[in-house]
């Protein structure tokens, strides 16, 4: 009968971002330049984590800043560089938002997990699921009407972006981070909610404002240099 739907069995190259997957890489080893870049981006996240906490000085403690502006940085770095992003987020939190501002080593090592989780799962969700639904895992569809000639779904992109990163993963991160600090008796017994709300709101505001600037300003530069990871490692 006519009108039978023709299914497209292979959607591999349907989108310009189809090369960006959840595989390890593309079979090439990590080059020395990439090796240095990953180390440098971790150093950058450490520096920015430190600045995120100290900029607001006495209003923040235990690595919680009213405005943790490094959050969108390590999210975007993860989208570009795979697992190196969450690793940088974790180390950045331990050293930059932890040791360098005086949070003890033990609390830092524990609650830094809250910075590892959001970028890790964002990478999985975008490359593993949303990329095949027409959403750019490099988030260019937040700012551009088309990517490599393909029209983007901006409204949908923003919806998923805020829902996944701003709400779901942010809440999980807040529960883990504030929860660990509360459980360690670093945050006052009845102060969980003010700190939790501060964490969530601060990260959400930073993410919504800064991510588009990073994406628009830098993704094309990174891609043009051949430095976007095809997979987790390289």
């Amino acid at each position, binding site marked *: 009968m006519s009108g039978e739907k023709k299914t497209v069995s292979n959607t591999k190259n349907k989108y310009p971002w189809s090369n960006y997957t959840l595989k390890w890489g593309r079979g090439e080893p990590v080059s020395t*330049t990439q090796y240095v870049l990953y180390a440098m981006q971790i150093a950058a996240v450490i520096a920015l984590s430190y600045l995120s906490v100290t900029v607001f000085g006495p209003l923040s403690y235990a690595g919680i800043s009213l405005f943790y502006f490094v959050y969108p940085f390590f999210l975007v770095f993860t989208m570009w560089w795979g697992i190196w992003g969450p690793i940088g987020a974790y180390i950045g939190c331990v050293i930059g938002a932890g040791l360098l501002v005086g949070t003890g080593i033990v609390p830092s090592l524990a609650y830094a997990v809250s910075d590892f989780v959001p970028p890790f799962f964002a990478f999985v969700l975008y490359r593993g699921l949303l990329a095949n639904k027409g959403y750019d895992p490099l988030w260019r569809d937040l700012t551009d009407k088309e990517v490599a000639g393909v029209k983007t779904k901006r409204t949908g992109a923003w919806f998923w972006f805020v829902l996944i990163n701003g709400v779901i993963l942010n809440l999980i991160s807040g529960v883990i981070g504030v929860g660990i600090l509360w459980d360690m008796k670093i945050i006052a017994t009845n102060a969980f909610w003010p700190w939790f709300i501060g964490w969530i709101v601060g990260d959400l505001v930073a993410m919504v404002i800064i991510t588009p600037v990073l994406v628009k*300003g830098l993704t*094309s*530069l990174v*891609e*043009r*240099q051949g430095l976007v990871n095809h997979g987790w490692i390289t």
Partner: protein
Amino acid sequence: MSVLEVNDFWWKYRSYVGAENPFTLKGLSFKVDKGEFFGIIGPSGAGKTTLCYALTGIIPHVFTVPYGKEREHIKGEIKLFGQTLTKVEAVTDEKTGRVVDKIVGIKQTAPRVGLLLQDPENQFLRMDLLHEIAFGMELLELSKSEIEQRAKEALEIVGLGSLWPIADLVHPSELSGGQKQRAAIASFIALRPELLVLDEPMSDLDPEGKLSIIKAIDSIRDKYDITIIVVEHNPEVIQKYADKVLAINNGETIAYGTTEKVYSQWKLFDENGLYASDIARIGWQAGLTYNGRVPFTVDEMMEAFNGRKQKSLADDLKDDPIDEATEEIISVKDLNFWYDDGTHALRGVTFAIKKGEYVGLIGQNGAGKSTISKIISGLYKKFQGEAKVMGLNLRDRKVIERIPCYVGYVFQNPDNQIFMRKVYDEVAYGLKNLKMPLQEVDQRVKEALKSVGLLSKIDEDPMFLGKGEKRRLTVASILAMNPKIMIVDEPTTGQDFRMSEDIMNLLEELNKAGTTILAITHDMTLVSEHTKRVIVMHNGAVTYDGSTRGFFSNAELLDKAGIIPPMAVRLSHEYKKKNPSSPCLMNAKEWVAALK
């Protein structure tokens, strides 16, 4: 015996998105013999750094080519020590039995070949001096005693022997740029290379740093019979040391041969924007020769004069001093400044700059030039003493907030000042910060871009502009804000001759239009050609403040400040020994006028 043989070599960088890149190196052919000092010259963007990468194996092992497209990116051959370094050959794949193109050649050139890059910061890889020197040897798995002996020797050779006892305690941040470069040279010397390639090793250094690098290179060449290849804009270095020179532009050879042969071609230099040194320019334009060619050194020029005398130019040498009645636009009195680590950076600095002056601020690294400039531009606030700009007191917080409206600061590194991804937006950035109406922003942006010759690039991405264009863009970004005072930090560093001239002419035009210019620079040629007044700083204090000619005339002052004057001035000093009444001529233009 040839150490390097380059035969019709072509190279194209791979493109990851968008259109293919054009060829960066186009059919280069030359030879470098053992023990030679080989110079490579060319304007910015000519492909000199790319050539250095190709000669050391970095191309194609760090900058790789896509599989299956080898012949599209590489043509020709490079041979190193008689063996193939880079070449594309058809080989039979062992697994598939098919004939495929493969890049063949030496995969790792270290330790026989060393490469020194331009930026000292990016090649200091370890956390202390000792391990930096030892790094290459550690990777070769040499014994500890061997490493120790070679490291100590290498530090002595580059003039850092005094740091040996504390080498493991010296952090990279405690070393100057010149010291870091010497440390990098030492790290290669310790590997006993046979070939050392240096890519503009002195461009980021102060005069003392430059001299120390030259001395280090010269001593290793003698001691170890190392073949040296140097990419350098400064013709003095090439003319003094190089046996052969390769001049390239747009990836192609424009001249190749002995130093004498290449530097005799005046037209070549003029057409390609290459810098030929004051002495050579004087020789060409005044028709003076030495042994049948243009003179290269002061001594050669003195012989070339052969009785020819200068005209009396005393009346023509107008230094145009600023009218005493002109108001002061910058005034600092007894200024002291300490950094957080306790360094006393400024010690009682006092000077005043009048409206419309063009002043050179010179001195070695660490003299306090950048510190004083940052105080004047409101970036540093905690100072002792008095500082005023346009009569406004820089102690007032409200004044400091508004200082960018009056003082434009162009930083040394353009990469640190480009915030936007479109040239238009970049220039508009500062204006939008001032909340100007959009119509006015548009008008000012276009005027500023026009004045720096970048109007045609208004929609381009600044990240992908050439070096000189980026520099002009940063000037335009400040220009658009219409500052009364412009402070430019090392405006010609890393620029070729033509670009440097363009920038300096632009600043001169701005000065003529009424902008007060304060140029921080190590380039004495620039100072002698464009500034009327210099302020010399040494160790946080002002050691001279007066006319440029007065400064360059005084050999004792020059020596005290550690300043090496431009060749034209050195020629004047030499000439004065035989003709005491002759004035101090500061640049090639004045000399040519005096000799015609």
